[in-house]
């Protein structure tokens, strides 16, 4: 107990202030109920759309024989991509000793957990006979990237959940005695979840060791999840997918989408939760630079992805590229490539653009662009099979999503928002103990020990 008594009074008041700031927005208020009510109603509408699809089959969507992976799969890729931000922030930057990420690391994990948890459901929405889902496990082939994908997404979800939960333990212990404005059941939940945390140095030691192991483990897992997602496409010899760089192409694209998503969340929490003294302008500046870096790398992969097949122009690739550059998808393609990537890169080069508000607007554009980028990866290729399309109904030839399909696509997004809302409204979004410098002796011990 000696160490605990060493904490000066100054530190105690410091902790009081910080805990006060961060815990103020936590809890269920009228805003929370209104927002969750709105989300629930929207989700019910989406579920109704799914009910129709479940009963009548995929015929109610725009999916037909040629395009069997439409918006659903585009959305799936987007969800997996967005979830990768947890690994980039905590894993890569955390292990590199970038201490500035501390206040935003938990937000990144919340995003990771929310998107990874729902990604699997998105796949189910693309199944005509969802009740046959168990067949994937009963008759699944270990040779199929689909099975690999299911495996790594599950693993990543569990690791991300642990990476969110373990660093939350000290905060739960702090919060359970301080949340006077919260209902009693919340304190009970905190007490239960805090796993008898007493800020004992040995507990901190375990906390640091386990998170460190998880941070190392999360990097290959996250690389695997999005590389395998890219293989779902790249193992097909089809124009637009038949690429050897699809793994890194998807991975860097994921970092772009995830960084943009994190900036949006940071802006929301710093303004709405009044946490701007923790999530500062400097954090936005740094995240702006990170977004810039990832976007440049992604642009580099894009150039490779289009220039090399565009130079060779093998017949099928030529048809595919023509469709993107000047054909049916031209306006979407150029809007996404220029508006969602090139212009943001140019803007982010300037410091004023990395201030909170301008950066958030840019991030919003990039985030939406990322979704449509997935659409462009999935659908045009499916519309151009190698064999000629003959004697088929007109609606098979060009894919047009239906209203029901759109509602079913929005559903999972609502679920993501719900998960983020619950995790960020019931638990502190910024680590109190890290802000207050608790457990630092143990970190230093830990660092010295290495």
């Amino acid at each position: 107990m000696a160490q605990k008594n060493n904490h000066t009074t100054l530190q105690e008041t410091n902790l009081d202030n910080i805990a006060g700031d961060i815990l103020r927005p936590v809890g269920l208020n009228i805003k929370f109920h209104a927002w969750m009510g709105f989300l629930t109603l929207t989700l019910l509408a989406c579920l109704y759309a799914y009910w129709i699809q479940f009963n009548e089959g995929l015929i109610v969507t725009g999916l037909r024989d040629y395009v069997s992976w439409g918006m659903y799969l585009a959305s799936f890729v987007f969800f997996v991509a967005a979830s990768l931000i947890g690994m980039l922030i905590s894993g890569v930057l955390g292990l590199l000793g970038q201490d500035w990420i501390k206040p935003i690391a938990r937000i990144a994990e919340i995003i990771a957990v929310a998107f990874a948890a729902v990604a699997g459901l998105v796949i189910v929405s693309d199944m005509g006979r969802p009740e046959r889902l168990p067949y994937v496990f009963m008759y699944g082939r270990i040779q199929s990237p689909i099975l690999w994908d299911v495996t790594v997404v599950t693993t990543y979800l569990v690791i991300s959940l642990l990476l969110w939960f373990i660093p939350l333990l000290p905060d739960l212990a702090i919060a359970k005695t301080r949340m006077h404005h919260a209902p009693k059941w919340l304190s009970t939940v905190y007490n239960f979840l805090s796993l008898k945390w007493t800020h004992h140095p040995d507990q901190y030691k375990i906390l640091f060791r386990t998170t460190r192991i998880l941070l190392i483990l999360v990097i290959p897992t996250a690389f695997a999840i999005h590389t395998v997602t890219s293989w779902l496409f790249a193992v097909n010899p089809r124009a637009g997918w038949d690429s050897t760089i699809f793994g890194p192409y998807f991975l860097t694209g994921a970092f772009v989408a995830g960084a943009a998503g994190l900036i949006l969340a940071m802006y929301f929490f710093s303004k709405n939760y009044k946490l701007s003294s923790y999530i500062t302008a400097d954090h936005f500046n740094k995240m702006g630079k990170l977004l810039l870096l990832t976007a440049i790398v992604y642009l580099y992969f894009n150039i490779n992805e289009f220039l090399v097949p565009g130079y060779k122009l093998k017949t099928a690739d030529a048809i595919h590229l023509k469709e993107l550059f000047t054909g049916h998808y031209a306006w979407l393609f150029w809007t996404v490539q220029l508006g969602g990537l090139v212009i943001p890169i140019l803007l982010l080069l300037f410091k004023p653009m990395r201030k909170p508000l301008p950066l958030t607007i840019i991030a919003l554009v990039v985030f939406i662009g990322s979704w449509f980028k997935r659409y462009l990866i999935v659908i045009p290729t499916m519309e151009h099979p190698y064999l000629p399309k003959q004697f088929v109904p007109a609606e098979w030839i060009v894919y047009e999503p239906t209203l029901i399909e759109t509602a079913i696509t929005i559903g999972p997004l609502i679920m993501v928002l719900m998960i983020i809302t619950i995790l960020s409204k019931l638990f502190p979004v910024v680590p109190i103990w890290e802000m207050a410098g608790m457990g630092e002796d143990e970190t230093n011990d830990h660092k010295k020990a290495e």
Partner: protein
Amino acid sequence: MRKLIIFLLLTTGFCIHVSAQSEWIVPQERKGRLSSFEFSDESRAKGLDHYNKNCASCHGQPGAANYQNLVPPPGDPASADFLMNLDGEMFYKVMEGRDPMPSFKSVLTQDEIWEIISYIRSYDPNYVHAFLPTAEKSAYGGIVSITLTHLKEAGKIEAKVTGVKNGIIENIAGAEVVLRVKRTFGSLLAGEPMETNQNGIVVFNEPSDLPGNKDGLLELTAQLTNQDAYGITRADTALAVGKPFEAVSLTVERAMWNTVRKAPIWLLITFSLAVFLAWATIFYILHQLKKITDIGKNVVEEWD
């Protein structure tokens, strides 16, 4: 004026050319040709099979009008235009072909072509079937047969054509014989067709470089080409003159495309190892969480 004449000449030439394209003339003497057997359910079933393998890719499914967009169009076999052809005309067209319709002379046997015609005729409600009664099969008026002998040392295959007419056996000279080897799809000519000599004998070189079955057996068919003169006369034999070849099924060995029980070993090991390592770590961490709780419990007890 001269220009006008040239113009007229050219346009007429062009018109004639076009009409030649659209009209597919079958020589008079071949129009009336009939099948040598009666069409039956069996022949129609076989015909359907041959049709799907050889014709459907261009002509589509009869009645569906889903033929390929070629010039000139192949046409739907169930259409009135197509069925207007006499049996003999159809037979001639399939035998000879006309660009882009391929000739099937050396791909299908004559019987097989007749089987296809019997199948196509099942779409023709007005069709009245006529075939050659056995006695009228040939102009020769007797029964002709081919005997195949394998001259192993010489590496040759001898075909002897004999006829029996009015109880007298004779050698048939000057009859063209063709030797074919059965392949997976259709059959292959083994050398040029040849005419029998004075003794009714023709000698083919045995095919030397063809893959046979696992014992090197090749299925050979000798046939007289002049069906009008001799009727359908053929002899089948199987000779071990091919290269022994056993096609190993692609699903025998462990492979990426096989069932999960036959997954590649390296994949099983890598996948299981990766999953094991990740989840062993996760369980280790869960165990550490238990330790955190234990420490907490002890501390609380100490305070008490």
